[in-house]
């Protein structure tokens, strides 16, 4: 028996950290232990209060910043911390499912019935190897947004429908002194980068891997290389995109776009509320959605979509009482509450702008009013949501591969590598990790 096989082993690696965990220290009996990242905290607390009032079940709620969330959650799961339910990103589903940290809910009719009322790509994003592992928290996609005021000043009446038109209109704006860098993309090597470059790649008609899971990202005809070349030319040839994009994180990009200094941007759809809110944005009322421009000969209006969901741990599922409490929690938060309303989903949309996977909400008068007020109508959002595709790179090795991928895209943006070479490096890493996983 090795030292690692002993009870110390890997659990010992993280046990010290867990001693400080509120979940480990104070656990009211009969409570649901829920972990999320530090987003929509007020809304979650409000819903927890409503849940406790409706069911009498207490909730221990703990949250971490998103940037550290995966590591924090993994260390707790490895150490068998008493977690019942947590927020999970679709990108982590395969590795978490393979590790045995998520419980399959396919045998829970009370939760599975919500699939009939959910957008198809949302449900698909929670399925791995034919089993469903959760109920949605929210589902969103990357949107192409335009500053209508700047377009009007440049005499442009129709937003661009292709990336070639984006370049042409940007150059016009540059020549007229309207904006130094009309296009804004947040390309910092953080957790958002893969969503941005996936959206761009899909719009160039491309993909990273084929249906069998083999890398095609280095294939010049499959879009990723074309998208990478577009970025490099936007920065170095046309100079319509700032070289500082490589150090612009999503939140800073949002602020920059809200300042009114840029005409075009790719932004998560839920940010439309903040961008058109006069209290948060100088460009309020001027930001509108357009379909993702097509790029190259095989271009599409497709974009990258993602979902976050409530996942139950196998430990919670195995214990009858915990399972009962957790399922009620998941339904109350990810489905309908005890009054039969999608209260959490609606709260997240109207308060935060987070789009819901629940289709019935689209007809809700408050939701219709929300999109009318903040986006000038919900037609484009609905059309773009229908063209959203989940990241094709989601796999058990995604977490490791994405580090190499981020570096490859940044190297292209810096002009330090040819798009083909950078994508080849990312592809080689993909193949190596895929092979190692078998």
């Amino acid at each position, binding site marked *: 028996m*090795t*030292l*690692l096989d002993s009870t110390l*082993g*890997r659990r*010992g*690696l993280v046990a010290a950290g867990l001693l400080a965990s509120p979940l480990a220290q104070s656990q009211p009996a009969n409570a649901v232990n829920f972990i999320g990242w530090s987003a929509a905290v007020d809304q979650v607390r409000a819903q927890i209060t409503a849940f406790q009032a409706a069911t009498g079940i207490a909730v221990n709620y703990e949250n971490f910043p998103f940037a550290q969330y995966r*590591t924090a959650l*993994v*260390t707790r799961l*490895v150490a068998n911390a008493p977690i019942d339910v947590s927020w999970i990103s679709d990108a982590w589903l395969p*590795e*978490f499912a*393979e*590790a*045995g940290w998520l419980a399959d809910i396919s045998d829970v009719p009370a939760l599975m019935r919500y699939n009939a009322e959910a957008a198809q790509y949302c449900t698909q994003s929670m399925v791995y190897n034919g089993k469903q592992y959760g109920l949605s928290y929210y589902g969103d996609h990357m949107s192409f947004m335009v500053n209508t005021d700047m377009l009007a000043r440049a005499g442009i009446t129709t937003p661009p429908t292709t990336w070639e038109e984006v370049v042409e209109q940007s150059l016009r704006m540059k020549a007229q002194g309207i904006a130094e860098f009309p296009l804004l993309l947040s390309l*910092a*090597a*953080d957790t958002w980068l893969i969503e941005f470059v996936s959206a761009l790649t899909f719009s160039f008609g491309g993909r990273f891997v084929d249906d069998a899971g083999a890398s095609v990202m280095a294939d010049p005809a499959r879009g990723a290389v074309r998208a990478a070349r577009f970025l490099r030319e936007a920065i170095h040839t046309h100079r319509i995109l*700032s*070289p*500082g*994009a*490589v*150090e612009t994180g999503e939140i800073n990009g949002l602020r*920059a776009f809200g300042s009114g200094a840029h005409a075009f941007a790719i932004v998560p759809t839920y940010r439309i509320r903040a961008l058109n809110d006069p209290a948060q944005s100088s460009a309020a009322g001027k930001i509108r959605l357009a379909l993702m421009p097509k790029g190259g000969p095989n271009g599409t209006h497709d974009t990258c979509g993602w979902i976050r969901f409530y996942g139950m741990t196998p430990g919670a599922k195995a214990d009858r009482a915990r399972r009962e409490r957790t399922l009620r929690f998941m339904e109350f938060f990810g489905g309908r509450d005890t009054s039969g309303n999608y209260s959490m989903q609606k709260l997240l949309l109207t308060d935060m702008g987070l789009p819901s996977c629940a289709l019935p909400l689209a007809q809700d008068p408050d939701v219709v009013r929300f999109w009318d007020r903040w986006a000038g109508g919900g037609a484009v959002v609905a059309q773009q949501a229908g063209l959203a595709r989940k990241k094709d790179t989601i796999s*058990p090795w995604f*977490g*490791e591969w994405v*580090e190499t991928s981020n*570096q490859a895209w*940044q*190297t292209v*943006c*810096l002009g*330090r590598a040819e798009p083909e070479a950078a994508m080849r490096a990312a592809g080689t890493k993909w193949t190596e990790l895929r092979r190692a996983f078998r």
Partner: protein
Amino acid sequence: MRLGYDERSAALLVAPVLGVLLVVAAFPIVYSFWVSLHDIVLTRPLRRPFVGFDNYLRIFDDARFWTAVSRTTVYTLVCVVATTLLAVLVALLLNEVFPGQRLLSALLLVPWATPSVVNGLMWKWIYDPTYGLLNGLLVQVGLLERYRVWLSDPDITLLLIANAAIWKQMPLAALLMIVTMKAIPEDLYRAARVDGANVWQRFVHVTLPALRPGLMLVLVYETMISIRHFDLFLIMTQGGPGDASLTLSWLIYVETFRSLRFGTGAAMSYILAITTFALSWAVIRFLGKRI
């Protein structure tokens, strides 16, 4: 051999400290080495094979590792050389008596007293492409036509981070130098003056040889600190843009806490620790002989 009363008392008194050291220092060192011999990936909890030194071999075969070695070497050299030179110059200045010398000595300690995270944030703001002090200053004095995106330029990223590190580390080094200088007997300078030595000759033949103990301390300390620097990279660039600031410490962080590969992360940590130890030993051995 029977221990006497004194020896037994001493052993008893030392035992608690020794026990604590074993738990907090010796055990983690041995355990992390054991971890480095396994292929441990946290997201694959059902497998943890013993791989011997395969992790080390895999690291040496990884292009990223050699990029990190190269970046770490450049960064360490710049930091150590610049910090030491500046520290000697500042120490020479503050060793003189002039009005405001005490105030200047006190002000010198401000960067050193600044927490590392604050230092990183401060310099990140100074370099900011939209509201940064550096851009504002250079544009106002006419040295720059328009605001520049400093940290996104891979040619200078490492130097900009090194600048932030030097700003923080130099005061302590200067302080050590001043203390060493104060210990130089005034008689040596008087004798040199009698022999007709000018300022430069007095510096080269009296001050510099006497500075060796302090110099050795500064070189060892700065090398150990710079080679393992992490906080500035986390705050300012996260190893980017691209791999422009991919140092060994950052690579270890990525491997261990992002990729969650504890086996290779531990192996890289061992390589870094051994390198740091070897460099320190070399400096001590090289300069120690001349003291």
